[in-house]
């Protein structure tokens, strides 16, 4: 009779351990997915920052570079276009394209600014320029971080034995953030000299 009890106890212990392991795998999957969602929203934070900086930049440049109407308008309309696209999975490609176009317009504006020594000397402009350069970098790094978290999530989701848990609870595949053109990956090169 004691032998039977020992067997029952061992089986119960094994079952509890398996259950804990299972819970651990499930929680890891959830954690990775939350990380990815969080990383995605971080990109939006930086994009929003850029929208907020642009009106200031345009005003400052207007004061000095009176003949650059066209470049300024391009920036304003590119911004407006990007703002109007909602940031969700369905519009991700469209949004990325619009943001890429905005990056291009901004880099042209900053290149044009090089021709105006007074503008370049303006403390306000220099500060905006630094903030804008940094924001471009932050957008890039936030996207990189998003892809890192997606990579970790996908690795967990696809490797054994977590793939079994993932299939049971329908953990869906996450898409990496990809830019259509290599040119869009480049943040505008801003020179300080």
């Amino acid at each position: 009779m004691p032998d039977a009890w020992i067997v029952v106890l061992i089986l119960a212990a094994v079952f509890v351990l398996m259950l804990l392991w299972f819970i651990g795998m499930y929680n890891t999957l959830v954690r990775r997915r939350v990380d990815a969602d969080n990383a995605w929203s971080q990109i939006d934070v930086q994009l929003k920052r850029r929208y907020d900086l642009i009106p200031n930049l345009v005003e400052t440049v207007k004061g000095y570079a009176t003949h650059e109407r066209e470049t300024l308008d391009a920036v304003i309309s590119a911004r407006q276009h990007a703002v109007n696209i909602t940031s969700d999975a369905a519009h991700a490609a469209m949004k990325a394209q619009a943001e890429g176009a905005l990056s291009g317009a901004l880099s042209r504006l900053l290149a044009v600014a090089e021709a105006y020594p007074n503008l370049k000397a303006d403390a306000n402009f220099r500060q905006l320029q630094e903030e804008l350069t940094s924001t471009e970098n932050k957008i890039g790094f936030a996207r990189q971080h998003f892809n890192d978290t997606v990579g970790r999530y996908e690795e967990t989701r696809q490797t054994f034995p977590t793939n079994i848990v993932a299939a049971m609870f329908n953990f869906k595949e996450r898409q990496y953030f990809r830019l259509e053109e290599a040119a869009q990956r480049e943040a505008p090169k801003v020179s300080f000299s």
Partner: protein
Amino acid sequence: MSTPPPSSSPSPTGPNRAERPIDAQVRKLASAYPGTTTYLDLMRKNRRQSFWLVVLMIALGVIVGAIMGASVGLVTVSVWSSSSSADAQHAPPVWHTSTLLVPSMIGAGIALVIASLGAAWSWFDGANAILGMLHATPLDRTLDPELYNVVDEMRIAAGMPMPRIYLIPETALNAFATGRDPEHGVVAITTALRAKLTREELQAVIAHEMAHIRHLDIRFSMLMATMVGLIVFACDAFVRIAWTGLRASGTRGRSSRSGKGEGGAVAIFVILLIIAAILAVVAPLFAKLIQMAYSREREYLADACAVELTRNPQALASALRKLADDEEPLVDLANRGTAHMFIVNPLRKMRAKHQELNSPFASHPPLPSRIARIMALLR
């Protein structure tokens, strides 16, 4: 505030750059890595090695504890059998398992408990002490928005909360990170290094410091340092106890001459003293070796992780070259206990000896080796 030099990143391998001895050394070392090496490979390798070093350190602590426990057991039995000869036949024999095994396990247990307590203590012994020692001041964001932004960029890439930033008013080139977890992270950089680096190099240096914070290196370094301290302390105490015991039993043996028991006790204490002496020499040495090997692995790991964050190995290599050119140590401001927190070894003596050499007692790998590993990523 010093203005940074133009950010048109100068290529460290540019044609106008004069070939220096370090370049040849770097090339030779870099050829040891397969051409397909990625930062992920480097990180995996480093993680594996640091894991085994931690295991080794804990094992060493447990062995020291076990030997001491066994010795205490031996002493108890010998004193028991010699003091009351009537009970001698009831006393377990000296080499019985219970006299060695049980006390040695108790000793190992005590060592573990003390190590955990020590680690817990060093955990809350904050980052502020070292910042105060270095006269570091918190960065005013408006005075150096570029530095603030670079740190912000790197913490976004790492997905971490924003660390506190400090400037160290020093002419030496160095930077360090501290804080027990990412929520309490601190990065500090000397004003001289900040002025000397381009934006991209600054990113690389900050990314290296972020990596230390992200991997909880500060916590583990503290744990390692605590373990070393405890092992040294325990061995020292052990020698003293054995020595005191030997003298006590020796005097008693001579004054009373009451039998063979006293002579036995003297012999036991002589053996004990020999064990203690060997332990006192060997254990701290091993502990130090493990600690430094661990520290070097973490430096390599932080370099690899910095590249993961910036995706720009060139910038880190070029920043490390600038650091290699610097001869000036952080005099008086850093000691052996804090050296591991810095991006390059801040101590003059250690630097002169170990900058170019691979020494088992160095807290940092030689810079050419570090640059070589980074350059291996560029091929």
